[in-house]
């Protein structure tokens, strides 16, 4: 019975995990090469975290993968060889909720834009899963920052895409709300391929299967650091504290290599 309930809450079976492949990507802004010959992969079903100094191009890389940058070249595709167009859900640092729509209508936005029949039952399930069962009809203005970001998470999950791109999704929240949302995300994003941009090494340690540090201009991606254990992890555990120290020193070196101001 419990299995059945869990299955119905998920509603439709999630699509099979698809990894991300970026091959020899090139992106320039105003004649300055942000990426040149950048290649990397995210294993299907893994959470990859991108750390790096601000302005290094983390968000640009996400936009490139999301297909939102026009003037880029190189290959971006799924690990199955097909393009990622229409298989990516995007979650921004800002909640990007439409202020005139209720939480429920915000979650249903994607299906409305695609001209599908809005699946209200599933949207309600998702809002309940992020802990907003009693705020479904509230407009964003009546919600707190944490609640708004929960709606944004539900909206991202409602897209039911195999690949999820997150651009500092929890950075505008206070510490307690952030850690709650990280736990929630770790639970709800199981089975998805996630690329998470963050400026917080602890967040990467809590959620990441692979952690990359981006540095330099044009950008290079550092080797993956893989924290052991299941997510969400407790970053105060001794072996993670050690890894945290390593990440910080890599970041410091990255900052120097990128040449940004302190």
């Amino acid at each position, binding site marked *: 019975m419990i299995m059945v309930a869990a299955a119905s809450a998920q509603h439709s079976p999630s699509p099979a995990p698809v990894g991300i492949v970026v091959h020899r990507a090139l992106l320039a802004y105003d004649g300055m090469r942000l990426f040149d010959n950048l290649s990397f992969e995210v294993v299907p079903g893994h959470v990859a975290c991108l750390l790096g100094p601000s302005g290094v191009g983390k968000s640009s890389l996400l936009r490139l993968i999301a297909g939102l940058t026009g003037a880029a070249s190189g290959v971006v595709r799924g690990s199955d060889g097909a393009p990622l167009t*229409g298989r990516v859900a995007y979650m*921004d640092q800002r909640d990007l909720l439409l202020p*005139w729509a209720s939480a429920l209508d915000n979650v249903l936005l994607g299906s409305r834009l695609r001209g599908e029949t809005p699946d209200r039952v599933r949207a309600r399930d998702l809002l309940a899963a992020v802990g907003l069962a009693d705020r479904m009809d509230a407009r964003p203005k009546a919600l707190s920052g944490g609640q708004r970001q929960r709606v944004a998470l539900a909206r991202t999950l409602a897209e039911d895409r195999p690949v999820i791109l997150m651009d500092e999704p929890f950075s505008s929240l206070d510490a307690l709300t952030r850690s709650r949302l990280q736990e929630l995300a770790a639970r709800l994003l199981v089975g998805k391929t996630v690329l998470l941009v963050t400026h917080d090494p602890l967040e990467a340690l809590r959620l990441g299967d692979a952690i990359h540090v981006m540095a330099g201009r044009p950008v290079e991606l550092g080797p993956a650091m893989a924290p052991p254990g299941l997510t969400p992890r407790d970053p105060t555990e001794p072996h993670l504290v050690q890894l945290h120290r390593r990440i910080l020193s890599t970041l410091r070196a990255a900052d120097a290599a990128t040449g940004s101001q302190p």
Partner: protein
Amino acid sequence: MIGGLFRLLLVSLGLVVLWQVVVWVAAPPPFILPGPLATASAFINRFDLLMQNAAVTLAEILLGLVFGTLLGAAGALAVIAFGPARRWLLPLLIASQAVPVFAIAPLLVLWLGYGMASKVAMATLIIFFPVTASFLDGLRRTEGSWLDLAQTMAGTSTSARLATMRHIRIPAALPALASGLRVAAAVAPIGAVVGEWVGSGAGLGYLMLQANARMQVDLMFAALFILALIALALFYAVDAASRALIPWQDDSLPVPKE
């Protein structure tokens, strides 16, 4: 809103007192400047006449508002929706404003007659541009990150663009449209009255011309008073309606903490 009305009443009262003082001190002949009392008595004595004509003018203004808003909104949507047409429509729009509406009022009366049609056309013409310009502004300034989000959700097909227009661009532009409508409500009476001055058989503008010719300046003032009331009521009605219909624009809602 209540405080605003109170202040408005207080300011009006102050102006009336000032007016009375001017009449007492300068003592102009009543056909140059009648006092508030003479105006009030004209208002009461000729109430039926005033109301008949006010109804005509009000109808012209309201019809002008409806048509001007519909045309203006449609114009803005057309400019946004039909990319290639934009290059032709926008200069046409601006050129249409380069011709002063007042200058073509006699033409409109010639074409559409002395009845209400020419006045409604005047009000429509004068409203059309502020509505189009502000709505267009709102439609063009949609938050870019919303559009990016929409693109990841639905792609770039024509149907996705139309849906994005309907679900994101248009609602996002409603506050801008509302400010255009406020301007429209304020200028619509000008269009109607100018139309009546050029040639008509009814309406407050017509009544004022007649009263002026007969030195019934008190009646003129009474008509003017009604016209001002109509303009004020329209403005506040549009303001209240836009606040009620666009509640998310109001940022004084309490924000509960989690």
